[in-house]
């Protein structure tokens, strides 16, 4: 089966800055694919390479099997939902949504009907006459989505589309985007720096750092079995354990990772385990996050709220199940 989007050793260098560096990537048709990484990691540049706003300096990119280098954005059947929506301020909502159809030369009645349908799809029916300036952030986001979807793109690109929304709205939109993607069957490529968002929405996640993909896999893969220290640390802020520490518990001299929720905290002298000192506690509502100091190694543990906790500064003993200690591929 041809990939929806395929990168072969694709690079985009800006002078000496390697924004995207020899990236290989295959996104399957109908997939919800997330590109996750810190800012400046190259994920947005990758998205812009698919949209056609950037051209690769080397390597090749194909979209549904067709070579895309040198093809301008307006000849790609790919649409983008921009980070700050990029709605046209001089057009009303209906004309914004109908814009793609208008430039294709589709008649006014027909394109307005299609735009109305797209607005219903994003649950904004009857908002056509308003100006973008009269809408809230969440509504603008939906209009931007409708404006992209009305063209029935082969691939929909979303550049941190939920970044500007407040928490509650963001959670609603995450669910909506996911069900919309399921219903339409369009390939979604979603850029985010929020690991929770990537894990909860995507079928597969690519973790970016320094213009390279560190790991591609299902959310579970990425979260449970990080390959490198960077992935372990960036996705879910896992405890990265040095090889000497890992050797004591697994017998292998390799880097390891241990999820904060896998660590149990007990009072000192309550049995064997890693002796540590409780540095501080952070109340997070459903859980409490503990910062611990195990002989110079800084660890984090997350315990359910309501757990009886020792006081800050007290000595504690840490235990965990051996199978939760994940050994990483990265050489020691």
């Amino acid at each position, binding site marked *: 089966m041809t990939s929806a989007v395929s990168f072969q050793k694709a690079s985009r260098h800006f002078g000496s800055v390697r924004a995207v560096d020899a990236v290989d990537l295959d996104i399957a048709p109908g997939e919800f694919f997330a590109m996750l990484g810190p800012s400046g990691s190259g994920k947005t540049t990758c998205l812009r390479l698919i949209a056609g*706003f950037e051209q690769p300096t080397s390597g090749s990119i194909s979209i549904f099997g067709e070579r895309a280098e040198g093809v301008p*954005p307006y000849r790609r059947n790919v649409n983008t939902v921009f980070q700050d929506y990029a709605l046209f301020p001089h057009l009303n909502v209906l004309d914004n949504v109908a814009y793609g159809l208008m430039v294709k030369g589709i008649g006014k009645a027909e394109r307005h009907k299609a735009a109305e349908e797209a607005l219903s799809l994003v649950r904004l029916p009857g908002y056509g006459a308003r100006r973008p300036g009269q809408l809230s952030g969440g509504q603008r986001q939906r209009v931007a989505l409708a*404006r992209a979807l009305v*063209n029935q793109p082969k691939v929909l690109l979303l550049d941190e589309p939920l970044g500007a929304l407040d928490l509650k709205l963001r959670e609603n939109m995450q669910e909506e985007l996911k069900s919309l993607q399921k219903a339409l069957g369009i390939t979604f490529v979603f850029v985010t720096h929020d690991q929770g968002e990537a894990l909860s929405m995507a079928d597969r996640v690519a973790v970016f750092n320094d213009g390279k993909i560190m790991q591609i896999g299902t959310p579970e893969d990425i979260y449970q079995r990080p390959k490198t220290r960077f992935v372990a640390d960036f996705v879910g802020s896992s405890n990265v354990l040095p090889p000497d520490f890992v050797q004591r518990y697994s017998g292998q001299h390799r880097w390891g990772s241990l999820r904060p929720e896998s660590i149990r905290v007990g009072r000192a002298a309550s049995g064997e385990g890693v002796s540590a000192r409780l540095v501080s506690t952070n109340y997070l509502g459903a859980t409490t996050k503990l910062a611990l100091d195990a002989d110079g190694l800084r660890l984090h543990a997350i315990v359910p709220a309501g757990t009886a906790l020792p006081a800050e500064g007290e000595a504690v003993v840490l235990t965990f199940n051996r199978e939760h200690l994940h050994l990483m591929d990265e050489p020691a």
Partner: protein
Amino acid sequence: MSLDAAMVRATAPAILPGSGGLRGALSDLFWRKPKVLLLLMLLPPVLWLGIVYIGSLFALLAQSFFSIDEFSGLINREFTLKTYGDLFQAANLDIILRTVTMAALVTLASAVIAFPIAYYAARYARGRWKALFYLGIMLPLWSSYLVKIYAWKLILAKEGILTWLLAKLHLLWVLDTWLSLPVVGGNSLSVSFTGTFIVFVYVWLPFMILPVQAALERVPGNLVEASSDLGASPGQTFRNVLFPLALPGIVAGSIFTFSLTLGDYIIPQIIGTSRLFIGQAVYSQQGTAGNIPLAAAFTVVPIVIMGFYLWGAKRMGAFDAL
């Protein structure tokens, strides 16, 4: 150390005493009643604007309702519309029509020339190139208007560099053909309406470039990308996104180019034919002819035209950008 700081904090008063004296009292007064300060600051410029500027404008308007005694040459200070009757004679209407046509053409040409320059400056020029752009646009504005016009007279003259250049390029026939045309032609560019037009466009161009550049600078770059992403070719993006969003800037610039051309009397006098423009008519009526009322009536014409122009511009949203 930190103990000392705590001691100081403990003994310091929560409210500081007034600084005393007239200055302290005034500062407190202005803070409590900010409108007093505003009034004091605005009074001188408002008096200037109200009396000297608007006042003289009304004096001018009043003059246009007086008439001149044709035998004695004295001004008859009684209300009459006779002067406006004179204004609408065929010869004077000719002058008005000529000036308005020239102003419209100059505005159109300025907009066409200014747009790419402004677009480059707003979208691509950065750092040093942007500074160079501003310098290039502003530099002509810092040099004397008269010197520039006389320089153009030399450039456009029959013996001038333009004719010389076209001769070298074997393109003199193009110039000769153009000059042989009625109305726009003449003996040389420096004594034709074409020459007047070229110099007008040159002199007023910066006033068009700057507002268009300001308008384009406010168009977020991702709107152009969004348009392209949605399938619009560069031409379609220009028509549907860039031009509508730059229009307020173009209209704002056209207010300058149009009104400055309407009122100018030096350029057509130095470069052009002997046929008059409004500014020249005002100049000769109030000077040699001594007909102040008719001069005043002529002056009212650009004011009225600009009034309509601004009204139309406002409806197009030209001032939303200000």
